[in-house]
Structure formats: C-alpha cells, structure tokens
C-alpha cells in the first residue's frame, strides 16, 4: 500500500477527528447515521463513474441518465399520473433504460470515435430530453410503499438506501477485482495499445463499462425518487461533478489505470463528512461551497505531493 492509496483514508480520519473535536453534535451516533444516509446516492453514482475513470475516459452523462430513470421509475410504480403499479419490476425497467443510455455513450465512443467527454455530454442532454418529455409538465408523485419505504425504513440504524449503497460498493469491488470486465477496464487505462497487441478487442469492454456505469446512475436516480417521493427531471443535478470529485479525492486517477471502487468510496465519505461537518461547526452557509472547494483542492494537492518533481507536466 503506497501513500497514494492510503493518503485519502488518512485524510478522512484526520478530518473526522477535527470535526469531532470541534463539534459535540458531530460526534454522535445519529450524526454518523446521517452521514452514511447522505452518502448513499453519491456512493452508488461514484461506483459507476469510477469504472469509466479507470479506463481513462470521462462520464458527464450522470444528470441526464439519473433524470430519465427517476421519471421512468416514478411513472412505472404506483403514482398519481397513471395506473401503473409495477413495483420492483418498474425499478428494474428504469435501471434498464439507464443502462441503455449508458450503452449509447459507449457505442458512440467506440463506433463513431467521439471522445467520451462529448458523447457523454450529449447523452446527458438526451437523457434530460427523455425525462422532460415523460414529465410533460405534471410532476409524478409516487405512492408505492416499497419504494418510498427505502428512504425511511431502517435496519441496524441505517436506511435501506444506505444498505443498497453498501451492496453496490461490494458488487463494484468484486467486479473490479474478479471479473475480466473490471480488470480490462483497469488495463485499458494502463496501456490500451498493449491490449490490442495481445489480441484483445477492447471495444466491447468499453461499451460494457459505460453500460454498467449507466445502470449505477439509473439506480441512483431511483434512490433519489425514493427520497423525494416524486420523479424529478433534475434528480441528478450536480451528481456528475460531485461523483468525479469524490473519485479523484479518493485517489482514482483521471488519466486512468489507478484507484478503484474502494478508493472512490473513501472519497465519497470524505466529501460527505466535509459537507456535514462544516454545517455542524457553524460555518455560514454562504461560505460552505467555497470552503468545501478549497478543502477538496487541498486534499488532492496533498495526495500528489509525494509524486511531484521538477519540470513536471500537469494538464
């Protein structure tokens, strides 16, 4: 384990320590539960984006895909707009739609050779478009008991949504460690040309990674719908950059080939703890956004200090 791998974890411990020392409200069990619950959606979304970043690609389709899946699931489970009552099948279908949108990003990347930055930006717009069409001006409020229960039912002090996030992280980690898909995603970020020289066709793996990422975002959109009790076009707003930020803060490299799901999860906790802690120590809400940004940049800078050398090129 190098410093690069353990650094974010140390930073997390230090920041938790500082907040715990400064604020009695921070060091309570119920606040720990709050943090975990608040981190749930971001953790799921970050799982998805991590695989894309591992390949050295980038994914900005999160808001669109989450919006599309949020509206889709709201319209498929029991709601005030139509008579659908598909329950968990509706959830599965919404995730399928999201996976399809992710697949679209991947296909555009490998078939049209459009850089992922642009394809995913486009797919995000497509997703938002689909969501807006389905939304049709009337907000679908859900009345499905199971789905709305996810946000409130607790097991061992944590909401069902949080347990779903834990499961996602575990699944993500297993995919990364034990499947060809995960290892090849890692290898693509490391040295894509070598895979071609070894006779590996990387295209299907790239498409698969974007599809899987889409599925994670889709689940994220469903989780937001469960929290809000309604399907919103804007369900995924801001999740693109907060997920990428969390992944990078956790030690996943934007250039690809380094980091992973567990790294990114540490990053998610770091970002969430920051938000939570700043509120509890009484930083004015007007200051919070800026302060959080500074701390994130400082954290990443601290992580790269050991690698710095003269005349280093940073882009």
């Amino acid at each position, binding site marked *: 384990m190098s410093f690069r791998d353990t650094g974010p974890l140390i930073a997390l411990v230090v920041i938790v320590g500082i907040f715990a020392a400064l604020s009695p409200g921070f060091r309570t069990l119920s606040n720990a539960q709050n943090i975990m619950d608040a981190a749930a959606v971001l953790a799921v979304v970050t799982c998805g984006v991590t695989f894309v970043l591992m390949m050295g690609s980038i994914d900005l389709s999160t808001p669109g895909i989450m919006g599309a899946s949020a509206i889709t699931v709201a319209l498929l489970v029991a709601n005030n707009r139509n008579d659908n009552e598909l329950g968990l099948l509706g959830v599965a279908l919404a995730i399928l739609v999201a996976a399809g949108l992710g697949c679209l990003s991947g296909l555009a990347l490998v078939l049209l050779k459009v850089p992922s930055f642009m394809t995913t930006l486009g797919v995000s717009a497509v997703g938002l478009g689909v969501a807006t069409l389905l939304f049709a001006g009337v907000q679908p409020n859900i009345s499905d008991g199971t789905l709305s229960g996810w946000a409130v039912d607790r097991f061992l002090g944590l909401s069902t949504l949080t347990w779903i996030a834990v499961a996602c992280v575990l699944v993500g980690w297993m995919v990364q460690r034990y499947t060809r898909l995960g290892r090849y995603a890692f290898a693509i970020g*490391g040295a894509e040309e070598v895979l071609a*020289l070894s006779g590996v066709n990387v295209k299907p793996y790239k498409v698969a990674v974007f599809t899987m990422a889409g599925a994670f975002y889709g689940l994220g959109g469903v989780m937001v719908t469960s929290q809000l009790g309604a399907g919103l076009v804007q369900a995924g707003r801001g999740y693109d950059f907060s997920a990428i930020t969390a992944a990078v803060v956790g030690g996943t490299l934007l250039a690809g080939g380094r980091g992973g799901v567990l790294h990114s999860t540490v990053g998610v906790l770091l970002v969430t703890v920051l938000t939570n802690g700043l509120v509890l120590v009484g930083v004015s809400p007007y200051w919070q956004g800026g302060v959080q940004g500074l701390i994130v940049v400082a954290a990443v800078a601290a992580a790269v200090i050991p690698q710095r050398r003269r005349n280093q090129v940073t882009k």
Partner: protein
Amino acid sequence: MNMQIEPEQRATAPVTALEVRGLVKHYPGVKALDGVDLVVRQHEVVGLAGENGAGKSTLLKALVGLVRPDDGEIWVRGEKVRLRSVVDAADHGIGMVFQEQSLVPNLTVAENIVLGSEGLGVRRGVYRWDAMRRLAQEQLDKIGSRIDPLARTDTLTFADRQMVEIAKVLRIEERTSHPPVIILDEPTSVLESKEIDALFTQVRRLREFASVVFVSHRLDEVLDVCDRVAVLRGGQSVGELPTADAAPDQLHRMMIGSTGSDDHYHGAAVEPPAEPREPRLVVRGLCGRTFRDVDLDVHAGEIVGIVGVHGSGREDVCRALFGAEPTTAGEVTLDGEELDLSGTRAACAAGVGYVPAERKTEGMVGPMSVADNMTLTKQEARCSGPLVRPRKQAKLVDTWIQRLSIRTPHRGTPIQRLSGGNQQKVVLARWLVSGDVRLLLLDHPTRGLDIGARSEVYRLMRELASSGVATVLLADSLEEAIGMSDRIVVMNDGRATTEVDAPVGDKPTPLDLVKEMV
C-alpha cells in the same frame, strides 16, 4: 550449460521454420521493403542487422501481422500464410518481444502473461486467480525465472519485465504443435551488461525449443549470440554471414555499402588549448539525490566525457547543471560567475544548453515545425514583444538549415516527419541560434541514430567545440566517449572517481575505463 545440449534436430537436416520471399512494402515516398528474403531454420538464432531505415522494423512488423506487405510471400514450415494480426501470427507460431515493452504496467505479471488468452484463468468472465497464477508460473518456469506472478508489473525492473515478455511470448507454443519463432527487437538497448548476459543465456535456452530472430544495432552482440546474420540495406537483403567467421568490420561494410567504419571521428579532435587557462565550468562538491561531492572542470573548446554504468548518477549531474534536477550542496561557476541552478530558465539565460537523451519526449515538440522547434528557447528570434514575426524567424532558421545541411522539405514541416539524425540536428541548432551558448550538455546525443547520422552529429560537436563552446558529453558507448572526448571523467556510484586524459594519439582503451567504472 546451454551450448552443450544440442537437440537432435540440429544434427539432421535443418527444418525451415520461416521463410520470407521478395517482401515489398511501400509507404508514401518511401520503399520500406524492396524485395527482402529471409530464411529462419528450426533451432537457429538469426541476427538481423542494418542501419536505421534499412527496413528492419517494417520486416518485423510484417512478420507479426502489424504491417500488410504489398507484395511477396511469407511461408511458415512450407505453408504460405497471410498474417493479418498479431493473433494470426501467434496462431502460426510467430511471436515478438517488442522494443518498447508491451506490458500493461498496472496489471499483475500473471495477467500480462495470459492477456488475451486467459484460458482456464477466467471462467465466464470471472477470474480464477489460482488458475491464473499457475498458468503464468508454467510460462515463467520455461525460462527459469523466479519472478512472482502476482507482483504488479510496474514494480519490476526493466530487465525483469523483459523476462516477463519472453514468458508471455512463449505462450504461443500452446497454439501450435511445432516449435515457435520468437522475434526479439532491440532487446538489449536499455539493459546493463549483467542483464545482457542473462538475456543471452535465455536466447541460447530458447534455441533448444524454438527459432529466434535477434535484432540489435550493437554488432558485437549480434555476432556473439547469433548463428547467422542477415543484413538489410535500403529495404533490400544484401546478404548473410555465418557469425563464426564474421568480423564487425565486415558487417559494417555490408550495412553501409562502403568501407566506412564508425571510428572516423577519432582523428578529428581539435588542438589542445595553447596555454592553461581558467576552466570555463568549475563544479565543486556538487551533491544531489543520486550523486555526491562531484568535482568537474571543463575548459572552453574542450569536450569532457562522463562515463559510468547505469546508476552512476552521471545523467542526474548533467540535468542538475541545467537546473532540471535539484541539488543539495556544491558550487558551480561558469566563466567565474556563479551559475544559478534553480531552474532551466536561469540555465538558458546563463548560456547553458542541454540536449536530452529522450529526443522524442524531451528534446522536441513533435507536431511543431522545424522552425518553431529551432527557436523554442530564443523567443527574440521570432518575436517582437508578444507578437510573432514569421519573416524574422524564417531568415534565421533557413540559415541554420543550410549551415547544418538539415534535410527537411521546408522549415514549416513538423519535426516528427524528419529522420532521427535531422531531428537531432534541429535540437542542437536550438542552442546555436541563441548564439551565446557557452556550455553544452549532451545527454546521449547519438542515441538511436544510424552510423551516417551519427557521424554528422560528431562533426557538429567538433565544430561547436572549436568555436569555443565547453561540452559535457554522456556518450552512447565507451568507444564514442573515448573517440570524442579530450578528457574523460569516470563516475561510480554517484561520485566522480577518476579522470583520464584522452588526447588524440594517446586514447585510453575501453578496458582501462571499465576497470574504473565497476
């Protein structure tokens, strides 16, 4: 032990493993291959020699399916084949260890070895790490390597990674029933002598169950390890020699098509400075990350070679003098004034020039024009204030293109389209256009250049020295260092240990230096 065990096949008539007949490959404006023939027999190590641009790499790429020839035939064991991809070539038992290593750095050794054909290592997309490790271990055992299959590849040394590549290539044995053909492309270029010995042992081991094509621009190595050498020149086969009775000179002649040899630079040295003067560069007690207490004097007009094995710290000393490597202690003066080592800008301003070893990544900006590359450090040469003045630049650049006879279609041609030798001349010209360079640091200035281009760089170095520039040279070979330098400093383990005068007519032998280096 490897030489004694002669497989039975070698006693009987040798089987032709691979045959190339009349291979032709055109690129726009160039005939890379123009009728190349090559025969590789079973259990034979065939050397492939030729200058840069002779067609070696195109031939190799054709053999592993990376280049599709325009004409000609490739036969594998009496069967005409068409190789469309690396996988195709592997199916016919041909595999290559690439010059730029082809391993994924962030995967384990085991994954790299089985990459693309994981077999039992992966079932239904799920890794079986145990099976994977066993598969890799089998391959590593073939070459008697003790590398841990589960180590991350980027934690290994270059030499170890090369062993991993050989182990990986040997997997093609599982695709064919007959002995494979293994191609090694410039495998020794970054190895140290001990590692080269280990590699040669490996090559001799390979011969017992495979055929080997060995490519190197070091002729002594080719003669040492190969049974036979085939020589290419200008895309054509010009003949072959059994190594048993070949001398490097003979090979040279075949390669360059005349009686020239690479020792022509020995005699060209300038006269030693008439009277002892204050040295231009004085280094006292310089310390850095990889070197300690280095003292060095270089006079104006003098070329001082620094020699040392890998890890001697000589490259870092060179970079430190250019401000590109941090120093912790020491005093450096240039013409009596203290030299600012805080960064490369300060060094340039003080009249220090540096030609880095990695031409493609550090020496030049590939897609940028010859003109822009040449004036990169001297912005005044092409700008007035913040504005670029193309005509001013053109005049200056054209003068230097002519003076150095740089072969380029135009000053606006991207430098990456030039041959290596002409690229290097542009890189050197960068310090000449500034007109005020006093100290030139040359880090392997002839790396990767063929004999013809090398001699032009040598001539240029001489000219610069006679115009009064002080030069520090890290040579590509000991012979080059001895031939070019007026004085040689030996570095060993981060210290400058010995200094040897090397005037014309009284040059030290490589052996003298090697004794000091290790």
